[in-house]
């Protein structure tokens, strides 16, 4: 059965002066898929993601996200995506409840819907009773889970996660991924960058970026077979060693 594509790029490129951060990248992401974007630091993952989110203007190539063109309809795209940046970006001086209300509000959710969503979310995150805590006071793992839940509070078609589990303990990472699976089950397409290879194995398909190009794109099982490796770690190392750019 042919699935609908929610992200399609063709020779998408981003140059900063002489430096080509993203080099002729073409791929398609299907609806409801968990799509992993893997690469060493500085391989161009974040830049590629920022172009798709409408935060950065591509230098050349084409791309559509949720059926909208990244050049002309970037404001339309924004209504249909969620985004969780590498840098934690909830308001630390607002409470959990206030953050939910604010982000739900700017995506145009009605008050009643916001209340329902807040209850649901607090329950799901086991944060009932803590809703009046300032976000500043939360442990990092809680903050990340909260940030993810808030990024999808408006039920977007796609959510972009930029290294969402950086610096988080293994148990919280596992909990985080169960949240991701739950969202994917509801039909939200997940586009996630990571350096954790065990997380790469959780994805439906993985693309590996080396020096701004996509060197491999397939399901983890196929990649492991193709590169004759028992784990994604092995696959990644074989590809990443070819890199000429040094990481940051």
């Amino acid at each position, binding site marked *: 059965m042919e699935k609908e594509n929610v992200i399609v790029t063709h020779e998408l490129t981003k140059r900063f002066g002489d430096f080509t951060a993203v080099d002729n990248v073409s791929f398609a992401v299907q609806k409801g898929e968990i799509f992993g974007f893997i690469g060493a630091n500085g391989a161009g993952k974040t830049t590629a993601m920022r172009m798709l989110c409408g*935060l950065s203007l591509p230098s050349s190539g084409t791309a559509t996200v949720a059926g909208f063109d990244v050049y002309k309809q970037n404001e339309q795209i924004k209504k249909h995506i969620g985004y969780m940046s590498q*840098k934690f970006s909830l*308001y630390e001086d607002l409470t959990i409840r206030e953050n939910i209300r604010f982000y739900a509000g700017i995506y145009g959710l009605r008050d009643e819907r916001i209340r329902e969503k807040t209850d649901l979310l607090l329950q799901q995150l086991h944060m009932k009773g803590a809703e009046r805590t300032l976000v500043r006071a939360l442990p990092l793992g809680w903050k990340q889970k909260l940030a993810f839940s808030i990024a999808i509070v408006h039920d977007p078609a796609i959510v972009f996660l930029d290294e969402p589990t950086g610096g988080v303990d293994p148990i919280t990472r596992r909990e985080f991924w169960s949240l991701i699976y739950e969202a994917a089950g509801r039909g939200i397409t997940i586009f996630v960058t990571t350096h954790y290879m065990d997380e790469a194995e959780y994805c439906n398909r993985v693309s590996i970026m080396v020096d701004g190009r996509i060197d491999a794109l397939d399901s983890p099982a196929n990649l492991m077979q193709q590169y004759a490796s028992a784990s994604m770690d092995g696959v990644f190392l074989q590809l990443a060693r070819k890199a000429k750019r040094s990481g940051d």
Partner: protein
Amino acid sequence: MRMLKILLWKELLQIYRDPAIIRILFIMPMIQLLILPLAADYEIKNINLGVVDHDHSEYSRQLVNKIVSSGYFRLKDYSATFPQGLKAIESGRTDLILEIPTHFERDIVKDNRSSLFVAVDAVNGVKAGLGGAYLQGIIQNYNQEVRTQWIQAQRFDEQPTIEIASADWYNPHMNYRVFMVPGILVMLVTMIGSSFAANNIVREKEMGTIEQINVSPIKKMQFILGKLIPFWLLALLVLTIGLLIARLVYGIVPLGHYSTIYVFATIYLLAILGLGLLLSTYAQTQQQSMLVSFFVTMIFNLLSGLYTPIESMPAWAQLITRFNPVSYFIEVMRMVMLKGSGLADIRYQILALIGFAVFFNGWAILNYRKRSG
């Protein structure tokens, strides 16, 4: 509209939660308005006088007495020779020397003329200028007295003199507080307008939350209004506190209408907030935005006519003041408070400020991008 409501709710909540903002907002105006007007006074008092009297006559003593009893001078040094008197100036004990020559009295009585020598330490230009002028005034006055004493004997030889009678309008007692308080109030409102909003936006950049905003469907205008309105309200609140202090503490009641002040302040704040906004679109860190806005407001304040009259600046500096929104507000404040000017009298200033507001905000909106190139 709903979007704006959410943004304002969040902004006000954050301001309310920030103890530093609240403290700065209320304590700063109080302290500035209670201390500065009393200290920042142009009137020069306590000038330290050194006298070198070679005459030791009745007249020379009368003259020194007259100078000291004026209240502006303090007799700090009484030297026998001029070099000794100069030492007192060098060591900073005195600010000026009055040298009375030998035969001062005899010359006046016999030849109808005599001379005095005044040497002024001009390191502090204002003090030197005013001190010298006061001293001259007193000596002239003394001269007049001496003359009337002697003129009675020869009344046919009357010299024509022009006497000047001046009336000080709008500030009849030449009260410096009346003049300074409105200016200081303008300075305060300017500081809040230009740096608070700018810092707030830059903080979102630093925290990374601005990216979360940029990736959302919030429109540029909504975001900017969401930032401007809260600080616009805060600045008007501080203005109100300031006007209350002016009235209750200094008894300064504007001759014009409070409404005129508020109408002008509203437009003025749009311009100043626009400037802050513009700075914030360029600054990447709060440090940058603080330093730049500090620099800009300092120049604005010094070239605003608050401390020195614009009319006495060189022509090129006067030209700069035409592009300084602060100078317009200070002018208007003084006009409304002291002269009782109404909206019709300040229409030119209002138009200028609307121009500034359009310019700064337009530039800021053009320069604020949700997407980088």
